[in-house]
């Protein structure tokens, strides 16, 4: 029997494809699917199984393993750069992550709050001064995280059109393998020059500090590439999806405006229901492992259906409902295991400031088209919305 092709189109913006739900509801919750690469991979769909897989060292993150799950038919060229932390297994992973994670602690992120608030205010000022309707994606969702990650890394924001375009191409399923390779190469070359400049003339920013702390410039390059892409599209898409969700729920929006304590739990729920990086939790087994009564053999590709797991009724009550005050934090929207998102506390901080500031400063903010007619990113590795047209009333 051949394994059915993996489905990737969601039933609705926050519900997994029906196929993923069906897999989750089978006896084992585990089945084999055929990936666009032609590889046959195990698909895990329950939260418990995926958390077990992602904390088990018998599953590897090594993308150079030919059996690592891929979404494209061609074997991508791995010669461009050294593996970054997301591709490393223990024992190499720990020291590499610890060399940078101090830059992303909860306290460090809290220190960025005043500057992020200023960036958000300036972009809202500019949007309010411009024509209506405005596209929230261009006015706020994209530029805010982009400016924040640029300042943190020490990448000139004036070049953001350049890396924005390449980062989008890299994350699009609609772009050919050659197109993505070209984008990766151009971004690599750009960052390589930047890092050479910083090595010659040290700067007080994340990349500069990595270099002065004695990290190899080749490793700093891989890190810069990873953080620039990861810091761009992900938070941007969550801002767009979150704002649309809030605007569709006026009562909850009003509650949020009255009580900012509700914002962080709401963010956790939005992260859960949208699970924008739903296929990011892929691994390859390096030993035989039994999960849920199924034996996964050494060398088998394994895919986590993370959105299905974040809607798993055995892990969340009324899992299909969006409950902004749910307060559940055991979702895997940022992954799980040793590779859990490095920038998660930066993302939470940015989302919190954007949502709080928008509801406070523009109480009449509304969509100009119904949420279900927006163009959702079914063609991207990171889920999101292409445009979010909004308008507002003149201040009374």
């Amino acid at each position, binding site marked *: 029997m051949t394994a059915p092709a993996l489905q990737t189109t969601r039933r609705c913006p926050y519900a997994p494809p029906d196929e993923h739900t069906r897999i989750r509801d089978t006896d084992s919750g585990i089945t084999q699917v055929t990936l666009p690469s032609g590889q046959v991979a195990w698909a895990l769909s329950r939260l418990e199984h995926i958390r077990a897989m*992602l*904390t088990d060292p018998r599953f590897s993150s090594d993308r150079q393993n030919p059996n690592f799950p891929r979404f494209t038919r061609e074997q991508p060229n791995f010669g461009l750069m050294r593996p970054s932390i997301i591709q490393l297994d223990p024992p190499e992973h*720990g020291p590499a*992550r*610890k*060399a940078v*994670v*101090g830059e*992303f*602690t*909860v*306290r*460090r992120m809290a220190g960025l709050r005043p500057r992020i608030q200023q960036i958000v205010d300036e972009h809202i000022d500019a949007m309010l001064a411009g024509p209506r309707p405005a596209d929230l994606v261009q006015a706020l969702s994209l530029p805010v995280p982009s400016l924040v990650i640029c300042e943190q890394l020490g990448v000139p924001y004036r070049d953001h059109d350049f890396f924005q375009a390449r980062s989008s191409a890299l994350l699009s399923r609609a772009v050919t393998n050659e197109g993505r390779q070209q984008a990766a190469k151009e971004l690599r070359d750009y960052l390589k020059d930047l890092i050479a400049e910083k090595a010659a003339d040290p700067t007080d920013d994340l990349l500069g500090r990595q270099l002065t702390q004695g990290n190899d410039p080749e490793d700093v390059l891989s890190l810069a590439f990873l953080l620039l892409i990861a810091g761009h599209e992900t938070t941007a898409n969550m801002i767009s999806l979150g704002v649309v969700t809030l605007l569709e729920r006026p009562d909850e929006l009003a509650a949020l405006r009255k009580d900012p304590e509700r914002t962080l739990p709401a963010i956790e729920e939005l992260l859960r229901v949208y699970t924008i990086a739903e296929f990011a939790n892929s691994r390859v087994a390096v030993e035989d492992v039994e999960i849920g009564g199924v034996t996964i053999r050494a060398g088998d590709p394994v895919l986590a259906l993370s959105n299905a797991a974040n809607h798993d009724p055995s892990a969340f009550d009324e899992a299909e409902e969006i409950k902004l005050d749910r307060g559940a*934090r*055991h979702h895997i929207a*940022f*992954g*799980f*295991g*040793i*590779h*859990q*998102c490095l920038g*998660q*506390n930066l993302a*939470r901080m940015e989302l919190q400031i954007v949502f709080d500031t928008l509801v406070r400063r523009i109480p009449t903010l509304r969509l100009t088209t119904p949420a279900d007619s927006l163009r959702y990113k079914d063609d991207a590795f990171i889920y999101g919305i292409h445009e979010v047209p909004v308008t507002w009333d003149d201040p009374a």
Partner: protein
Amino acid sequence: MTRIVADLDRCVGAGQCVLTDPDAFDQSDDDGTVVVLRDTPADDDAVKRAQVAVDICPSRALSLTE
């Protein structure tokens, strides 16, 4: 008495414990790893928060002992 135990070798500095209970957990400025500020939860609520921290710790670096 319930005690929080942290394994610094396993910790990857995700910071989930700090978000769960900033009175009990902090992170090292150097390598982001967990610093347990208060290893014996003072009341039932603090025990519950410690249990959440253990459950959501992505690298399984936290545990509770009696």
